[in-house]
């Protein structure tokens, strides 16, 4: 197991704070800043705990980091950030970015992101990442200096490639389908889960009304009074219990959301492959046509219709010197082209190899994480039922004493 940063360093996003400042257009804005704390893990030195380093970052800086990583390592499935805006909200949850619950969940998500990057065998070695964690000032400038924005592929180019590519690696095509399916099924699941949570909330809360009425009713009853009163209390407990239960479920939803966004990262890798493959195919095509031109020029035969050919037939052919010059140029171009093609081929093959290695790593991680998430969900449900059993057993006792 490679030595990754996560093993050498403890990383936490420990706090969140509301700040106000001026933005690019010199208007006042409110945003949240997150405190990143890092501490070197000493190998069992006596009592001495390394000092904690800390700095503040805001969400937009995390975004910048991630963009940098995606462009610089296109063959890696880069971990996603927690959502920018609250989605899949059910009625009790707030969609407000400043809502403390949302901020808290985002804090956890950001910490998770950093840990994922730090435990990735390739990403953890990146210097920009390291300085993100350790260097307070001037980090933004450093990132921009790498010029990574220039390396980014244009969206249009990528779309074009996706449609026009002829021979992409089959595995990537399958992977693309898989990520589409994953995305669609997880978003559907999250939507329905939100609705289910809403309804469940309703069922529990209406039971709270029982508490009030029972209490009022017990005032006029003699023998039934005590039983009613205590049963009412249990109904109130029941109604209140749903809040904690659903808060826990939000964490489960967040785990699923991470993989929803991971699907996008997978797609990005597939797109890169398609782009490279398309590039390759275009280069090969270009080379073939140049070779053909060469041949025509050399043998004097016109195999394919060309305007040049027509004009030269009409207006007289070129001089042999002109032909000679053209041939030379073409031959140079062909040689260049062949070298380029060779290197592009190599690039492509390397890309496929390393991408696929990371994809395998990702698959294992995904299976492991999702299985654990499902298990924890089941455990949550069990605990919810146990609580329900307790409440209703108590209520039953009270009722039987009426």
């Amino acid at each position, binding site marked *: 197991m490679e030595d990754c940063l996560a093993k050498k360093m403890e990383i936490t996003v420990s706090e969140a704070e509301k700040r106000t400042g001026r933005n690019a257009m010199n208007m006042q804005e409110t945003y949240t800043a997150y405190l990143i704390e890092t501490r070197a893990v000493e190998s069992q030195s006596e009592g001495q705990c390394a000092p904690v380093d800390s700095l503040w970052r805001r969400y937009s800086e995390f975004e910048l980091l991630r963009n940098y990583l995606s462009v610089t390592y296109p063959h890696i499935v880069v971990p996603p950030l927690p959502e920018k805006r609250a989605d899949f909200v059910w009625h009790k949850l707030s969609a407000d970015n400043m809502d403390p619950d949302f901020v808290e969940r985002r804090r956890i998500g950001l910490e998770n992101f950093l840990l994922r990057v730090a435990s990735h065998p390739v990403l953890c070695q990146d210097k920009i990442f390291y300085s993100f964690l350790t260097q307070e000032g001037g980090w933004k400038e450093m990132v921009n200096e790498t010029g990574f924005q220039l390396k980014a592929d244009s969206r249009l180019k990528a779309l074009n490639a996706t449609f026009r590519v002829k021979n992409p690696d089959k595995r990537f095509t399958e992977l693309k389908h898989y990520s589409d399916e994953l995305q669609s099924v997880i978003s559907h699941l999250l939507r329905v889960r939100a609705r289910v949570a809403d*309804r*469940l909330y309703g069922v529990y809360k209406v039971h709270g009304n029982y508490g009030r009425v029972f209490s009022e009713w017990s005032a006029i009853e003699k023998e039934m009074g005590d039983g009613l009163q205590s049963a009412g209390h249990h109904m109130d407990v029941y109604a209140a219990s749903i809040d904690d239960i659903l808060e826990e479920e939000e964490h489960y939803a967040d785990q699923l959301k991470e993989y929803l966004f991971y699907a996008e990262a997978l797609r990005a890798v597939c797109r890169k492959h398609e782009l490279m493959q398309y590039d390759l195919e275009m280069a090969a095509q270009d080379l073939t046509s140049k070779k053909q031109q060469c041949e025509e020029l050399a043998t004097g035969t016109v195999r394919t219709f060309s305007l040049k050919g027509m004009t030269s037939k009409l207006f007289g052919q070129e001089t042999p010197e002109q032909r000679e010059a053209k041939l030379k140029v073409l031959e140079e171009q062909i040689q260049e082209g062949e070298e380029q093609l060779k290197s592009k081929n190599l690039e492509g093959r390397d890309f496929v190899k390393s991408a696929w290695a990371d994809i395998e790593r990702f698959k294992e991680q995904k299976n492991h994480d999702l299985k654990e998430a499902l298990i924890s969900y089941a455990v949550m449900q069990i605990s919810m039922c146990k609580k329900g059993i307790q409440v209703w*057993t108590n209520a039953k006792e009270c009722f039987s004493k009426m």
Partner: protein
Amino acid sequence: DTSLSEVNSFSPSMPISPSSMINQYKFEDEPELRDLFITVDDPESHITAIETFITYRVVTKTSRGEFDSSEYEVRRRYQDFLWLKSKLEEAHPTLIIPPLPEKFIMKGMVERFSDEFIETRRKALHKFLNRIADHPTLTFNEDFKIFLTAQAWELSSHKKQGPGLLSRMGQTVRAVASSVRGGVKNRPEMFTEMNNYMETFSQKINVLDKIAHRIYKEEREYFNEMKEYGPIHTLWSASEEDIADSLKGVACCIDKCCKATEKRMAGLSENLLPILHEYVLYSEILMGVLKRRDQIQGELDSKVDALANKKTEKDLFSEEIGKLEDKVECANNALKADWDRWKQNMQCDMRSTFTNVAENNLRYYEE
């Protein structure tokens, strides 16, 4: 048995203590000593030129001597039940006659002859007759017997006898009028308490009825959403290899939860909702009974005022009224005790259902 018939007849010498009545009533309640078993089932639709209506089969099994046979099977329609109820009210104005299901439900917009409506009504009618059978006084009512045993044509001819609808309405109108007139002067403390109790109780039971319906509605919505939740996991498992089994397992569990929720809802609609509804109606009935009692007392009071000198008549009246009052007390207390026990059992059953559902959930999830 003989002691019970003494209660019915007018005996001036023996004051009947409410507590002894209760004991006898409780005794009667033991199922092993029941001698009258009634079921209401098999609704059938009848179409004539004028109207369409439903009849229900009423089967009676009994070991009582006053019944000529030990088994009877007749068909009755809702109108017949209405007739029976009004006859009972006429004969025993201060006893608590059990409620009948309403003519039709407004808010539910349930069609008159929908299966659900007919079934709910059938169950309520069944309850109605059995409550009468369990009542120490009402069970021996003559009209009740005829209702259970007479053939259709016999019943029609019997119905035509007796005071008309208008006179009965008049009685209730007079009762309401007299209570509006500013309450009764000499109402015993007990009945004022009962009145106050009933007012609050009626309020609370109505609210409970609404809450229970609301819970049912929320559970139904929850169930609808859950139905969609399970299959998504199955769909997902189709794209996966390693975690396909776990996903299918979750889908399975969710479906089981759905079934459990269905059971829970059924438990509510079979137990809690009908009982709460019955007691909503009961609270109206009880208010009516209390008003009638007040009216009778009002009559007594006015007679007492008017005939202050004729001692014997007054005594006669007093005793008669006193008997009635006692009877009302007894009926009230007996019913109250019975009702508390009923309520308690009913709620216990319902809660057991809930607990069972929760336990089922647990078992399913643990799989």
